[in-house]
Every structure is written in structure tokens, then in C-alpha cells.
């Protein structure tokens, strides 16, 4: 059984072909790490799955639960249980952390989720979601908020960026919570210690998945590969 199936999608912005026939599938409850150099299209892939405006594959299909979703709008996909935490989460004026965490579901206990993301609720619940939060604090709140949504599929775009080295276990903790809840996770990351806790990993290069399999194997491949500026030669390897 497959929860998310990306079938040979292509996508281009202006003159740049970002994906040319990329395929990927994620099973229910699977944590799938995505690796790739800067600018290979990891965030773009996240937007395509989430359905951000303007992100519709030129060819190919995205299936969720066996149904094509590539023409559904973002909020319609969210209704199906898809959500994401942005690489650089946006700030909000006049919305407190408490309100933010309970936007959708007023019944939940926001403290529980802040704690999961390593934040002390007493210090944060009444803070504003504006630029008085540090980058790392904002990222943690975003993680807490997506856990609170109890999604079926969550895309975490570099959840570890901006998080101090000693707190990586908070991120691992959040990923474990998703797993326990039976959610599938697409985990975009540059860090090996995060990637290896995934069930599976894939590397994007030159518009395609060039290597897929056990995280240990894929991270190893990613590190030892000679290709620095991929011109497609090395990366035809699958």
C-alpha cells in the first residue's frame, strides 16, 4: 500500500527545468528522508506535494491514497491530512503562540506540543508569533503546530536548520511522535544524523531521484559521490 505516489513529474520555473520525470512513493507510517545539494529542488518538491499556488507539475501525477491530487488546492489537500513545516516559517503579527497552536482545534492542549518540540510552555504560550521570536524558536513552534494537526502526511523541510547542535534530539523526538501516530513523514535534511533515523532515503539530483533505499546506504552514496557540479553524467546512476 502506498500513501503518496509521485509519478514521473516534471516542473520548470522560467528557463530552469527543476524536475524531469521524478518519481517517489511513501508508504503509510514511513519516514522518508530526501537528500540533495542546495538548489536541487527539495523545497520545490515540498510545494508541489502541498499544492502551493503555481506549483502544478507540467507532466506526471501526484496521487494521495490512490487519488490524483495535483489539481487540488492547498487547503483541499490539507483537508485530506497533508501538511508541511516550511524551511523558513513565516511570522505573524498579533497572533500568540497559544492561538497559533489552537487555530484549527481549540480543544487541544498546546503545552503538550510545545514540550515535544523542546520549548517550555510557560515561556512561550503568550509570546507573539512575530519577529521577536528567534529563528530556532519559530522553527520549533512550527514543528509543535504540525504535530498538533495530527496529519496523515507531513513534509518537514529542513526541520533541523537553525536548531542548535545539542537540540537535535528534540527534532528526532518530534519525528518519533509522528511515527507513533502512524503519520508518514517526508523529511528534507542535510544532516546525516537526522537522515539515518528514516525508514528510507532518496537523493535528488538533476531533476530526478538518483538513489533510493536504506538511509545508511543513501547517505553514504551522497557523501562519497564525486559529482560536485552535477551535469547529469554521474547522476544517471540509479
Amino acid at each position: 500500500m502506498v500513501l503518496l505516489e509521485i509519478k514521473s513529474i516534471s516542473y520548470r520555473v522560467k528557463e530552469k527545468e527543476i524536475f524531469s520525470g521524478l518519481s517517489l512513493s511513501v508508504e503509510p507510517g514511513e519516514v522518508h528522508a530526501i537528500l540533495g545539494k542546495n538548489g536541487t529542488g527539495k523545497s520545490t518538491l515540498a510545494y508541489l506535494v502541498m499544492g502551493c499556488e503555481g506549483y502544478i507539475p507540467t507532466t506526471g501525477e501526484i496521487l494521495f491514497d490512490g487519488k490524483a491530487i495535483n489539481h487540488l488546492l492547498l487547503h483541499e489537500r490539507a483537508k485530506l491530512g497533508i501538511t508541511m513545516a516550511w524551511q523558513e516559517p513565516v511570522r505573524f503579527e498579533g497572533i500568540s503562540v497559544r492561538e497559533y497552536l489552537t487555530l484549527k482545534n481549540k480543544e487541544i492542549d498546546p503545552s503538550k506540543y510545545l514540550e515535544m518540540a523542546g520549548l517550555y510552555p510557560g515561556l512561550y504560550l503568550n509570546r507573539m508569533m512575530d519577529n521577536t521570536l528567534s529563528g530556532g524558536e519559530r522553527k520549533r513552534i512550527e514543528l509543535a503546530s504540525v504535530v498538533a494537526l495530527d496529519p496523515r502526511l507531513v513534509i518537514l523541510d529542513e526541520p533541523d536548520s537553525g536548531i542548535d547542535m545539542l537540540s537535535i534530539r528534540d527534532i528526532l523526538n518530534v519525528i518519533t511522535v509522528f511515527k507513533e501516530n502512524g503519520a508518514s513523514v517526508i523529511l528534507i535534511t542535510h544532516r546525516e544524523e537526522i537522515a539515518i533515523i528514516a525508514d528510507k532515503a532518496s537523493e535528488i539530483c538533476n531533476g530526478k531521484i538518483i538513489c533510493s533505499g536504506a538511509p545508511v546506504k543513501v547517505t553514504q552514496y551522497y557523501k562519497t559521490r564525486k559529482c560536485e557540479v552535477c551535469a547529469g553524467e554521474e547522476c544517471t546512476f540509479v
Partner: protein
Amino acid sequence: MSELDELLKSFGEAGGDQSILANTAFAHLAASGHKILSRRAVKGIELDTVESDKGISATVRLLKGTRLLNPVHLCFGVLHRSGIQEINMRVNFEKDSQASFIAHCIFPKAEKVKHIMDAVIHIGENATMRYSEIHYHGIYGGIEVYPKARIIIGKNGRYFTDFLLINGLVGKLMIDYGVEVGENGVAELIARVFGHATDNILIKDKVALNGVNSKGLIKTRVAIENNAQAQVIGVTEGNARGARGHVDCMEIVKDNAIAKAIPLVKVSNSLAKVTHEAAIGSVDKKQLDTLMAHGLAPEEAVDVIVRGILK
């Protein structure tokens, strides 16, 4: 029902705390149209009022060194469908005094109502005034509001104002505030307005930083929808050494509404610094996407963002 009861009823319906006027620990002044309905002074504050054929005049004096713990409530309104109310206020905060004022302006049935506020406020040395003005307009949009104030801030004086009009139709709103800030003084002017239908909004704030090391902030948050129009003019002058001013204007526009922002910055002393930022546009797309990814419908998401900005 007496006129005061009726004013209080509208006040309560708009979310106000009706018991405030009965509380002897709070100074207040309540006027409906041209009539003064109720007033109370507390220790340290002198309140003189006169009724005229168009409205009322009030002179408020906060005596030297007085620090009021409870805010002074001003309750002004026109309860009829048509009418005019002109309020003349002369306010003097003497040296070292400190108090907050909350003005509730209530026009629940306005179809053809004009409310004019003309205030001259002196903030003495080391004195601090906080002034919030909250408007409750009805759903008919037949109201014109002209809040005009001239504020003179003395050495180390501080003046904070917050104008809020987010309930009901705005009608026509023409704010005109001018502040002169003395040495080490602080002026902070915030206005938050939500316009709909054919509302017409003009917010003109001027801060002249005349004193050494004086500081000024003009912050405006406006959301407009349907065919409403808004124009925000923020003028800051840096006229003395160490003066620091900032103008921060954000307008969110929906439907056919039209917004303009004119931040005007003038610096006449090379050791003064004034900055400005203005953002006009529809709701931020990334904010919208984020809230929708959190399960909100598009309209709900817009509402959360707009309410947040006006908060």
C-alpha cells in the same frame, strides 16, 4: 430609560464594562450629543465641563505629581440616527503626573452623524499620558468622525495613543494628529482601522522631533475591503540632535478597495535619524499558505491574518 442608561446599554453591547461609571475609584466623563450625563473626578484630577449648542468643552488638569492607578474613562456618543457632537478638550498633565485615558466613542444608529474632537494636550516635564480611543460604529455607515489633536510634549514627557476602529462601518474618518516632542520626550501614535463598503479613511499623523534625543513612532494598521478607500500620511521631522523617528504603515487590501500610503520624512539636523516602512498589498501569500496548511479555509485564513494585524 434615561439617556445615560441608553448610552451605557450601547456601551455594554459594544463589549464595554458598564459598572465602570458606578465605580468611585474611576474618574469618568460621559456625554451624549450636547449633554453631559455623568462625571466624576478623583483625587489629583480636575475636570471642568461646559455644554454648548453643538457639543461640550472639557478642561482636564492632572495635578503635579499625581499618578492615577485607574484609567479615566471618557464615554462619548450620539444615540440618535442623526446629530452633531463637537468635543473640545484641553488637557494638561502637570510635571511628574501620570495617567491613562480610555475614550469610548459610541454611535450605534448613526445614519447622519458628525463627531468632531478637537483636543489640545500638554504633557509636562516627566509626565506620561496613555490615551486609547475605541470606536463602536453601527452598521449604517452614516457617520463622519474628525479626531483632531495637537499634543505638546515637554522634557522627558511621554505620550502614547492608540486609536481603534474595527467594529461596524467606519463611514468617513479623518484623523489629524500633530505632536511636538521636546527633549528626551517620547511619542507613540498607533491607529488600527478596518474599513468596508464605501468607507473613506484618512489618517494623518505628524510627529515633530524638536527636542534633543526625542523619539517618535507612528504605526498604522489598516485593512480595507469592498469599495473602501484609505489614505495614510505619516510625517516625521527630525529637528534635533539624537532624535529618532520611525514610521511603520501596513495596509491590507481586499476586493476593490484602494489604499495609499505617504510616509514623509524630513530631517533638519544631521544627527537625527528617521526611518520609514510602508507595505500595501493583499494578504501575504506565505502567511495564507501556512494557515491553510494548518487546515483553515481560505476565508478563515484571511480573517485570522487581518484580525492579527488589527490587534
